[in-house]
């Protein structure tokens, strides 16, 4: 069945990298689409380039097969396995509804990896504070840091109800704790960690990496700021290109309006003016 209008050359990725460029939009094969919980799916595709280059909090643009829907759908990379790349997404509109109906063997157009990653260069205890559909990039952060002996990771995830991502993040994080709305939120968990003296771990000072709904991230940034814990927040905005050329994806920072896709998605609490 003929679909996408976009017809990439035989092997965009190989041709681009050979010529010294980033691969443009290209078509990849889907290897799995799995339902995690109501309205939440995990989609895996084969892309050696993205698998090799993705860094924590970087995202990929997925494109609809419907040429009526031209704009990219950005999703944080949630896991990498060999040359397989996974994203986890919630069905919120027409594009994600379409993606949820894809299956192994189908194809999809992608562009990526995109965005500036979390800064994970310091030897720290990275507390990965995620809410809702902000958790996927934090799963990958845990995975990415797993082999790094100089750091420790603790996942602190808040869910509406089903703890759908715990089984993924717990593969990689040193500690996983999660909570749902019936019990409290990520601040509840952070408070508990503090009370238990677990903010530092193995002598490593805490750094918060967070992704989730805006109110949650603001609360987290302020909570951290009060304790002098540095925090990095991964932001969302509607995008035109995802690679920095159109300036539509802005958030307000203390240095003016910045592009989520290429100045971010990661910003520090200071940049966002979110200190307590």
């Amino acid at each position, binding site marked *: 069945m003929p679909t996408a209008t976009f*017809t990439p050359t035989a092997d965009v990725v190989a041709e681009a990298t050979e010529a010294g*460029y980033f691969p443009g939009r290209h078509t990849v094969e889907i290897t799995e689409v799995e339902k995690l919980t109501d309205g939440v799916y995990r989609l895996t595709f084969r892309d050696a380039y993205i698998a090799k280059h993705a860094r924590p909090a970087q995202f990929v643009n997925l494109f609809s097969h419907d040429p*009526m829907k031209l*704009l990219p759908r950005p999703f944080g990379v949630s896991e990498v396995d060999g040359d397989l790349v996974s994203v986890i997404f919630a069905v919120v509109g027409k594009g994600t509804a379409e993606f949820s109906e894809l299956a192994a063997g189908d194809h999809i157009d992608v562009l990526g990896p995109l965005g500036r990653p979390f800064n994970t260069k310091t030897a720290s205890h990275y507390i990965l504070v995620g809410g809702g559909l902000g958790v996927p990039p934090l799963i990958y952060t845990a995975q990415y840091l797993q082999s790094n002996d100089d750091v420790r990771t603790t996942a602190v995830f808040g869910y509406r109800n089903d703890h759908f991502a715990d089984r993924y993040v717990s593969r990689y994080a040193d500690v996983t704790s999660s909570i749902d709305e019936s019990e409290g939120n990520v601040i509840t968990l952070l408070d508990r960690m503090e009370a238990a003296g677990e903010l530092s771990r193995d002598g490593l000072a805490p750094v918060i990496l967070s992704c989730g709904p805006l109110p949650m991230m603001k609360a987290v940034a302020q909570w951290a700021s009060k304790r002098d814990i540095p925090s990095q927040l991964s932001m969302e905005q*509607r995008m035109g290109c995802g690679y*920095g050329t*159109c*300036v*539509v994806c*802005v958030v307000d920072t203390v240095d003016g309006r910045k592009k989520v896709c290429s100045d971010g998605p990661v910003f520090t609490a200071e940049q966002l003016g979110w200190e307590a």
Partner: protein
Amino acid sequence: MTETNTPINVYEKHEWKHKTVVAGVEWKNPVGTASGTFQLAACRWFYDVSQMGAISTKGVSPVPWEGNPGPRTAESPAGMVNAVGLQNPGVDHYLVDELPKLKELGATVVTNVAGHSDDDYAQVVAKLADSPADMLEINVSCPNVSHGGMSVGTDPVALSRLIGHLRKLTSKPMIVKLSPNVTDIATIARAAAEAGADALSLINTLVGMRIDIRTGEPIISNRTGGVSGPAIFPVALGFVWRVRQALPDIPIIGIGGIDSGEKALEFLYAGANAVEVGAAALYDPTAPIRVARELDDLLDSRPELAAKLAAGETWR
């Protein structure tokens, strides 16, 4: 049968077969990038930007502008709505950053100029007068700023005054970029031409909007924005056609919904000397160079058209 269905390797070394000349300036090929959809820092990683016919850069203002708050875009059928509001780091930054870098790469540069007032435009044009920019493109058609922008481009008297003024400030080829949100494009085009425009580019975006049915509120913070992408292609083509009918001699750059060499070719047949690719570059970073390559091949079998373009003439 579609003529361009052999996939093109945009990374392959390519000798351009068909150039164009716009207001005396030679373009390697008739396809440029459209202003606001190209930033060197972003696009250079995806393809050899110097290979474009020309690069029209993001509108520059006398001082840095912060534009509209987010969200700035919404999707629409086969298109998009945007309300960036001309965020840019200002002409001084442009002169030390984007422009020299582009020239160093060997690009033909069209510098897009933005302003809220005649004086704003004049300041920018004056600063660009001695710069290495190859052409200036005066944007009097941005629907997303409340002063200047589109309001000048929809009023032939105001437009004539502005262009007449700018004409005195520079000898560089000056393109005036027109708005489609007007009753009578021929009058506006004529006003620009008579006031000293060397060329016209059209169209800028059509005013439009989207509403989120979950909230009942506009998706874009600015409420309305400008519609671009394939959806506007027939409208853009109609504007170029009408301006060409009204003004047989002025060079025209056709813009709007171009995502293939075939659509570019329609603009050339409508009377354009060159085209620019906008929205398509957003959802497909290498679209501009692909369109240029597809057109280069399509022109092979149209020697009469190709010869006219190379001589600075047009099909109509």
